[in-house]
């Protein structure tokens, strides 16, 4: 007998079910189901993945949803299992039903706390058309003041002819009694019944994970969960025949499943999404308007429109016209226009930079004609896909303004952010599953800490090898279950977050396409799907991404204008500035966008960039693609003239000439395919995708055959053909688009230029936008000082919240004044009040400041300790003595700062305390601000280090290759990249600069704990100097203990904060 499972819950039911939608579909197809309905609670979170998987498997995917009703819960009987929360299960019949479902969920989520849903009867009243309702638990456990009869009468009115009573059989005798009761009700009301299995896991084995998820949801352990757990493992996907046998006494219940499935014609293929229309001038078409804007922009950009430019623009406009995408480009242009009008820097990145139209519209900043970029990488007729335009914006407030503009422009129901599904990772899985299984918290904690924290993973980083190290016996049954459940829970969704910048917009109401939820951030609305789901369903996304460096540039320009009288135009920076390139060549790039990482710094002296294109190559070179494809060293050797430049085939020379015969960019791959195999632009892009991240063996084979055939037709066979195929297949996985590299290289050049010519303003802006980039403010400050910037300490009479620039007097050098934002524990509101008071009238004394500003005693002490009261003539200790005395007096409460004090003579009590030593001042700086403008921590230890033969970082350049050296410093970077075969890289900073140390995998294992924990390290080993790149190949590591107090590390990875322990 045919049976359709109308109620399959997936892991997108968030801790209520244990299988991914894809697994459900796969199992359903194997069991012979032709239709299956997804039934997650209060949303359609898993529906796109379910739909896509079902389409591939040839299963029809119905949309269902369990709607939580915001009604009083039924009372709990003593010594029994708690009743389920009131809910209704609905299935979508048609597009109207889907629209109603989305609107209902959106309304229910709007006023509810995060993760909950407040759906009342009144919200259902006008939104039930097109929905079929299955009811069961609500009748068995009616809310107080309701009876099953009254509920059924209400539901019959809401779902006329579309109401079914749901019967379930999980081999539970209480359920059987419930079924008899429901049958009696169905008979009394003349309602049909229908069978479901309320699937929560695909196979019986999934029950264990379901129990674990239940415990996580209820914040309890398996030992204490009791009746919350499943009675048995029967909520798995059963074969249709098995279900028919279970209900052989009620054939109508089985028959009705098929009947309902037939009534449900809706699938997500019928979503009805439409991109909004751009408001056009009367009588003008979108295409004509776009053409006009493009040519207007092109004339500004290019000044003279060469035939090549005209040809490219016409080609692109023709493709855009054919694909009917003019509206999309106009809308993106509108967002960029808004940014320009508001003075917000905006720059398109990614493949959009391959488009001359985007360049002309001001969306991107790279000239694709000049750089010979391939448009088809961005858009092609063959693919028939929406283009993907990502716009980089200054992070923070500016980006938020743009997002709010889009919300306002398209209405609260017309635009929303895409979601980000947070899934279980190894560490979170270990912690949560360990807690649920009642393992000793210390052991679980230790295990979680032992698991990898670096990008690179070796077999020792896996769960099983680490169990004994954490004190867990891998053979103990409970530990075996633990390992099994951790593996099973990995990659299951945990909860929904918000994507960093992906926005979708729709014509009309977006809440009729997908349910919307309020985000935790005020003013933000999120859809229930992530960006891949949206892309799969043809919903257009515009990524408005926050980029810290853009914010830095945006802030640095007015600073330079104000303090140096120089106008910087980012679009017209001097093209080949020698000072900038010299700086890049010696890897003096702390704070420079994209090229400040340890790996980039190690490449710069070898690549020695001399022009903008070198920088494009530099940005693209240190990426997984070239590294995994082993392109880095051939390129650098060829560039240094140590290896001849060769090409796999003479026809590829024009394509690979610029990169010395080594493929570095995706566009090159596309062009190779077009040249050697005669692929069109769209086919070449199809090839890249087939070989890319979502590899499908079938697709790869088909397109590879076409590639070989194309090459054979052009006489390319044998080794040459193999070499080409090999390079394409290995590179496609991690390739980097040239256009994207060029966009980033622009920012890298701009930031390097500012660092070279305006180091004070650049450092100031960098510090004001921290956290960003690779380095801690302490490192940025020291780097600025090494570049001749005088960095002034925090001073309550001068400093603002942010860092600022100032001159002691006209003509004096420009100084960077540290802002109060780095004072640990100082509230921004308190600092702002201090600045306001100071601007109204300068503080006469420390006592005057205390009286006028509502600073807490610990804030005052902190400011005193770091020397921020020096302008009042107090040493740090004297200020401490003063503020502790003042702050504790009741006279100085805010209410008492009135007239009686206003004219009172300020009193100053002589301090009996001795002044701080230089060492104490440095420690006080680190403790209070995490940085110091005084001597580096290592400077105080130098005599001790000299005695032990430790050389300074700066000295390394003068020593011979292979010489055994010792270096010491603050560990400012710890890296173990996924592409470095287990090698670990440490960057140590001392008072003269930074030194790099490399640890082999064996040594990393030996010093694993030290690497993770020690803030100060001494590394020794032979010096390696190749092409100006200097490393210490560390053979021994020692933790460097400070005399007193000790330092501890706060924070993760390379970002660290130093605070003395005592």
């Amino acid at each position: 007998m045919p049976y359709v499972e109308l109620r399959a819950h997936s892991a997108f039911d968030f801790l209520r079910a244990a299988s991914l939608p894809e697994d459900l579909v796969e199992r359903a197809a194997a069991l012979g189901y032709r239709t299956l309905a997804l039934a997650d609670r209060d949303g359609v979170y898993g529906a796109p993945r379910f739909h896509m998987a079902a389409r591939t498997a040839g299963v029809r995917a119905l949309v269902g949803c369990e709607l939580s009703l915001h009604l009083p819960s039924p009372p709990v009987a003593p010594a029994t299992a708690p009743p389920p929360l009131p809910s209704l299960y609905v299935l979508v019949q048609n597009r109207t039903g889907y629209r109603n479902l989305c609107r209902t969920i959106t309304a229910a989520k709007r006023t509810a706390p995060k993760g909950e849903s407040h759906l009342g009867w009144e919200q259902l009243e006008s939104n039930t058309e097109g929905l079929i309702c299955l009811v069961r638990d609500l009748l068995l456990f009616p809310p107080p003041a309701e009876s099953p009869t009254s509920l059924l009468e209400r539901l019959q009115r809401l779902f006329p002819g579309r109401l079914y009573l749901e019967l379930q059989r999980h081999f539970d005798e209480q359920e059987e009694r419930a079924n008899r009761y429901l049958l009696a009700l169905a008979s009394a009301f003349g309602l049909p019944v229908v069978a479901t299995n309320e699937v929560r896991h695909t196979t019986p084995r999934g029950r264990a994970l379901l129990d674990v998820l239940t415990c996580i949801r209820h914040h309890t352990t398996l030992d204490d969960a009791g009746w919350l757990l499943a009675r048995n493992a029967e909520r798995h996907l059963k074969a249709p025949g098995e279900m028919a046998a279970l209900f052989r006494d009620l054939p109508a219940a089985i028959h009705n499943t098929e009947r309902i499935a037939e009534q449900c014609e809706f699938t997500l293929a019928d979503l009805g999404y439409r991109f909004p229309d751009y408001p056009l001038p009367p009588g003008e078409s979108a295409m004509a308007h776009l053409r006009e804007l493009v040519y207007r922009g092109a004339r500004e950009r290019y000044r003279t429109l060469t035939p090549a430019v005209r040809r490219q623009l016409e080609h692109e406009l023709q493709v855009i016209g054919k694909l009917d995408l003019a509206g999309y480009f106009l809308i993106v242009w509108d967002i960029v226009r808004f940014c320009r009008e508001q003075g917000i820097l905006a720059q398109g990145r990614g493949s959009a930079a391959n488009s001359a139209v985007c360049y002309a519209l001001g969306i991107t900043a790279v000239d694709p004609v000049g750089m010979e970029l391939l448009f088809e990488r961005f858009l092609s007729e063959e693919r028939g896909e929406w283009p993907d335009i990502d716009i980089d914006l200054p992070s923070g407030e500016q980006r938020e303004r743009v997002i709010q503009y889009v919300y306002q422009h398209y209405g609260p129901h017309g635009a929303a952010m895409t979601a980000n599904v947070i899934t279980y990772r190894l560490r979170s899985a270990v912690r949560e599953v360990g807690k649920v299984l009642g393992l000793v918290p210390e052991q679980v904690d230790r295990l979680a800490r032992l698991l990898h924290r670096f990008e690179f993973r070796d077999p020792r980083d896996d769960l099983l090898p680490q169990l004994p190290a954490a004190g867990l016996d891998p053979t103990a049954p409970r530990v075996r279950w633990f390992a099994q459940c951790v593996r099973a829970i990995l990659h299951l969704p945990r909860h929904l977050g918000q994507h960093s910048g992906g926005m979708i917009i729709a014509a009309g109401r977006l809440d009729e396409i997908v349910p919307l939820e309020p985000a935790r951030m005020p003013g933000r609305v999120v859809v229930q799907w992530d960006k891949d789901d949206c892309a799969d369903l043809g919903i257009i996304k515009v990524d408005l991404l926050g980029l810290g460096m853009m914010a830095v540039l945006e802030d640095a320009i007015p600073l330079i204008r104000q303090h140096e009288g120089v106008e910087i135009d980012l679009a017209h920076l001097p093209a080949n500035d020698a000072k900038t390139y010299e700086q890049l060549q010696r890897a003096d790039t702390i704070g420079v966008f994209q090229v400040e990482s340890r790996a980039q710094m190690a490449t710069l002296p070898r690549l020695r960039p001399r022009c903008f294109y070198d920088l494009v190559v530099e940005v693209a070179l240190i990426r997984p693609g070239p590294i995994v494809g082993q392109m880095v060293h051939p390129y650098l050797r060829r560039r240094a003239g140590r290896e001849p430049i060769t090409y796999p085939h003479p026809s590829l020379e024009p394509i690979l000439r610029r990169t010395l015969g080594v493929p570095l960019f995706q566009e090159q791959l596309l062009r190779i395919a077009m040249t050697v195999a005669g692929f069109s632009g769209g086919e070449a892009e199809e090839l890249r995708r087939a070989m890319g991240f979502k590899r499908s063996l079938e697709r790869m084979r088909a397109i590879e055959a076409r590639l070989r055939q194309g090459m054979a037709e052009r006489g390319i066979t044998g080794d040459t053909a193999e070499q080409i195929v090999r390079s394409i297949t290995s590179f496609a996985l991690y390739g980097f688009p040239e256009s994207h590299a060029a966009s980033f290289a622009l920012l890298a050049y701009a930031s390097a230029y500012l660092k070279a010519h305006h180091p004070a303003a650049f450092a100031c802006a960098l510090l004001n936008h921290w956290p960003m980039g690779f380095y801690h403010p302490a490192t940025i400050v020291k780097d600025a000082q090494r570049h001749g910037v005088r960095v002034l300490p925090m001073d309550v009479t001068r400093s603002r919240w942010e860092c600022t620039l100032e001159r002691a007097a006209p003509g004096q050098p420009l100084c960077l004044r540290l802002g109060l934002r780095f004072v640990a524990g100082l509230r921004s509101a308190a600092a702002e009040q201090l600045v306001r008071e100071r601007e109204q009238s300068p503080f006469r004394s420390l006592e005057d400041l205390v009286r006028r500003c509502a600073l807490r005693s610990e804030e005052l002490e902190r400011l005193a300790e770091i020397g921020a009261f020096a302008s009042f003539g107090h040493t740090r200790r004297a200020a401490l003595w003063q503020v502790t005395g003042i702050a504790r007096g009741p006279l100085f409460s805010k209410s008492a700062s009135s007239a009686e004090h206003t004219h009172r003579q300020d009193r100053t009590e002589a301090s009996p305390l001795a002044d701080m030593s230089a060492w104490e001042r440095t420690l006080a700086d680190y403790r209070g601000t995490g940085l110091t403008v005084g001597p580096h921590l290592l400077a105080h230890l130098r005599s001790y280090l000299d005695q032990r033969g430790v050389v300074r970082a700066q000295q390394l350049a003068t020593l011979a290759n292979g010489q055994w050296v010792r270096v010491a410093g603050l560990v400012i970077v710890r890296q173990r990249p996924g592409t470095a075969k287990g090698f670990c890289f440490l960057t140590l900073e001392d008072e003269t600069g930074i030194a790099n140390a490399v640890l082999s995998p064996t040594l990393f294992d030996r010093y694993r704990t030290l690497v993770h924990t020690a803030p100060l390290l001494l590394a020794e080993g032979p010096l390696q100097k190749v092409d100006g790149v200097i490393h210490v190949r560390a053979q021994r590591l020692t933790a460097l203990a400070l005399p007193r107090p000790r330092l501890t590390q706060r924070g993760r990875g390379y970002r660290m904060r130093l605070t003395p322990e005592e």
Partner: protein
Amino acid sequence: MPVACLYVPDFPLAAWIRAQPELGEARLAIARTSGAQAELVAVSAAARQRGVLPGMRAAQAWSLDPSLLIRPLSPALLASAQAALADCAASFSPCVEDAGDGVVYLDLQGLIGTLFPSLRALVTALTQRAARFGLPARVGVARTKLAARLAARQGDGVTLLAPHEESEFLAALPIAVLQPSEAVAATLQRWGIATLGQLAALPAAGVGSRLGPEGVALWRQARGEDPHPLVPRPQPVFFEEGIDLDYGVESLEPFAFVLRGLLERLTTRLAAQGWLCSALHLRLRLAMRQREEHTLPVAWPHNEVKPLLALLRFHLEQHPPQAPIEGVVLRALPHPARPLQLDLFRSAGPTATTWGATLTQVLALCGPQRCGTPGVLASHRPQAHCLGAFDPIQTARTTAPATPVASFPVLALRHWRPPRPVEVFCDRDRPDFVRGEGVGGRVVSYAGPWRLQGEWWQADAYDRTYYDVHLSDGGIYRVYREEPANQWFVEGVYD
């Protein structure tokens, strides 16, 4: 009034060595918790020689000395050692203050010249007895408790401070010896105040207005003033010794070894004050956070380790713990060595009993697992129940709210305890014939199957398939098949 302070340096370390004397020579460190990131709080001299210091992380210490033994801080051991130290002092003076953390004070008034010929003889005897208790104590004697404590801490054995030496001695000491609060210590550190002398040199009013009452108290202490008199501890009502074990002990033999150590230390302490053991109370901390307690009355009070150990062994053989033992606390109830005078005209018998006393006897008779008020356990496991504390007052039972389904009539099942094993013959996986003791017949009709599977993470996971069968003998029974053993049982009969 001279006050002596008995102080055990590196007290956590001493507590461990007292419990496991074989650790005395080892390179040993005590960490605040377990794990690589745990902070070391005490380090043995041998470990210090390898560069291991208190305050280091365990991982850091291991990098210096891979064979270093690290034991976690054990509250049970600390409590036992502290009590033993106080008992040691109490065996000299009736006026003893237990200050915790390896420190006790005792009033020496009246002891010199009567019981001991000189102060030095007294303190020498004191340190020797502490050593017999397994504690390497230092002694300081001064006018005040504070000075005595600091003298004991800073000295290397016995430090006797004459009144005129006290202020000079105190001035050189670091602030940390006064153990200021975190906030005050931080402020003093910011001020650069490192010694008691520096603190004492600050103006009193300035300190008071800045550091409040605590600052003033510290300032006074820095000047050698101690406002706190010696507060005698009350007479102990029981004596306890405990230990946290490195790993779960699963068999009796090694555990008896542990018990012997505890008993030896307990009886030494009892004997030092003239007490005998009249009852033992055993508290066990088991794996998986379980706990067990056992009370064993001793028939005739005595301090002999061997019979007491035999009593404990016998009891544990009868009532084996449910999981590996990870920690134990043994408590002895003291009884005066001199027996009570009996009534000449009445035979000795129990005193008037109360509910509580009767219950205690019943508990002793039946065991704690078999006496109490039954309750339903929140579990799907069939007939899962628990025994709570005995509750003679019947609390009003709440009735279940009426649900529509509950109104359906049900049959009452008469449970057979324990369920009876039967043979069940199946036809196409359905029960067809049942044969067993007191029950048998062809299956006329049946309901089911009902499946119960749970506690899969436990060793005693259950997996049962139930049927209600109407047999040809006229009865309706509940039968079930137990998996994976594939055994059938009759659970009961329907009335």
